[in-house]
């Protein structure tokens, strides 16, 4: 049994919110620089230069990469041997978001009552929290501030098993095509195949947490990722949708067993401000 105090959790979440919004990960920067070299469109290259310049300004001047500092999605891996003390775990997470968004000059972008008066909650809470119980005595916290623009370009299809591998590819490519400039290309395409409807969407989002361009460890899935990426980049949408060869930096596919009658395919797009930070307590 190991005790972890809520105060420590809140402070950790606050710091993760701020760092995720100010400092783009090294894997993302590398992918963007690589994209800049490979992009053939002159305007596309210039746009990638500006995106890289923006990341440098954000890091140096401690400003958010994007004004949309997102709705915070938190993935917890809670060890079975952990005993949370000093408060309520989810309240501590939200307290951390509140603190980080206030102290870090981050935008409050959350409204209560989505279909009615949509009044801003003023502190960017509540966060969306997912918890996996794992073995061990640690608490791993991953914070993903997810912007609305890319999140709005989310898709789910309950394909017929007969649609098969080709059906999956065609659907994902069609989704990216439909999204055009809206998710702020160059994007990372998160794909979830299998599970139930909401499980597919969840693993599509979790797919975004992988280091950019790292292939799925299963070679069959990795091959699918490569093929989808090629097809996506043939669309010609390019950086910010002005045309080019690099529409996506990577495609990450996660899979899960599914029902004999189903082939769920979910697409969750990540914009080029691919922000996530983590800590293990």
């Amino acid at each position, binding site marked *: 049994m190991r005790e972890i105090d809520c105060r420590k959790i809140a402070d950790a979440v606050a710091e993760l919110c701020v760092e995720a919004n100010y400092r783009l990960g090294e894997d993302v920067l590398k992918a963007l620089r690589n994209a800049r070299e490979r992009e*053939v*469109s002159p*305007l596309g290259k210039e*746009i990638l230069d*500006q*995106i890289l*310049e*923006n990341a440098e*300004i*954000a890091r140096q*001047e*401690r*400003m*958010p*990469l*994007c*004004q*949309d*500092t997102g709705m915070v999605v938190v993935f917890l891996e809670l060890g079975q041997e952990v005993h949370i003390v000093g408060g309520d775990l989810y309240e501590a997470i939200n307290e951390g978001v509140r603190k980080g968004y206030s102290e870090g*000059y*981050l*935008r*409050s*972008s959350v409204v209560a009552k989505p279909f009615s008066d*949509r009044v*801003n909650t*003023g502190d960017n809470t509540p966060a969306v929290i997912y918890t996996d119980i794992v073995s061990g005595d640690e608490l791993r916290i991953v914070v993903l501030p997810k912007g*609305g*623009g890319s999140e*709005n370009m989310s898709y789910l299809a309950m394909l017929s098993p007969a649609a098969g591998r080709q059906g999956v590819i*065609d659907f994902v*490519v*069609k989704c990216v*095509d439909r999204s*055009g*400039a*809206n998710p*702020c290309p160059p994007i990372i395409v998160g794909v979830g195949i299998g599970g139930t409807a909401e499980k597919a969407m969840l693993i599509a989002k979790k797919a975004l947490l992988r280091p950019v361009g790292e292939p799925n460890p299963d070679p069959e899935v990795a091959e699918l990722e490569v093929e989808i990426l090629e*097809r996506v980049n*043939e*669309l*010609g*949408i*390019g950086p*910010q*949708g*002005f*045309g*080019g*060869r690099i529409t996506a930096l990577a495609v990450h596919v996660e899979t899960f067993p599914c029902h004999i009658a189903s082939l769920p395919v979910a697409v969750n797009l990540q*914009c*080029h*401000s691919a922000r996530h930070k983590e800590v293990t307590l």
Partner: protein
Amino acid sequence: MKITTPLTDEVIEKLHAGDRVTITGIIYAGRDATHKRFIEALERGEPLPFDPKGQIIYYMGPSPAPPGKPIGSAGPTTSYRMDPYTPRMLEQGLKGMIGKGNRSSKVREALRRHKAVYFAAIGGAAALIAKSIRRAEAIAYEELGTEALWRLEVEDFPAIVVNDIYGGDAYEEGKARYQTTKSR
């Protein structure tokens, strides 16, 4: 091309899809909730909180200004969400919009009819874009926080013409140039 606000028909006639411009002068910023308030005011026969004739609206809600800076990060939000409100705003004399992402055919048709232009700013280059904003003031709907109506003083604000008054579309033209297989 350097352009200043307010936008005249003379300047608008010179702009073509794909043109790179820098904008200097006053622009107004507002997004979803502010546009809803605009239309509600017009429906009630009330005046808008600003005179849109000749002006540019930037679809943007900034992050909070840190101490010593006029504004936080300030990149564009996705424009299609403002499509339902746009033809009405163009009727009021609005001459330019800055955002990102494509507009509906109805909006593009209204741009041609009312002689107005739609520009894009680089999405996500928000800290960089903020450097061209010298002053920012929430002038209406302050209770909406970031979604208030803002008056911005900008200098050399970089933008790309997406839709001109001649039917040009920078997104369509760009994609056609670089796509290598037909999307199915």
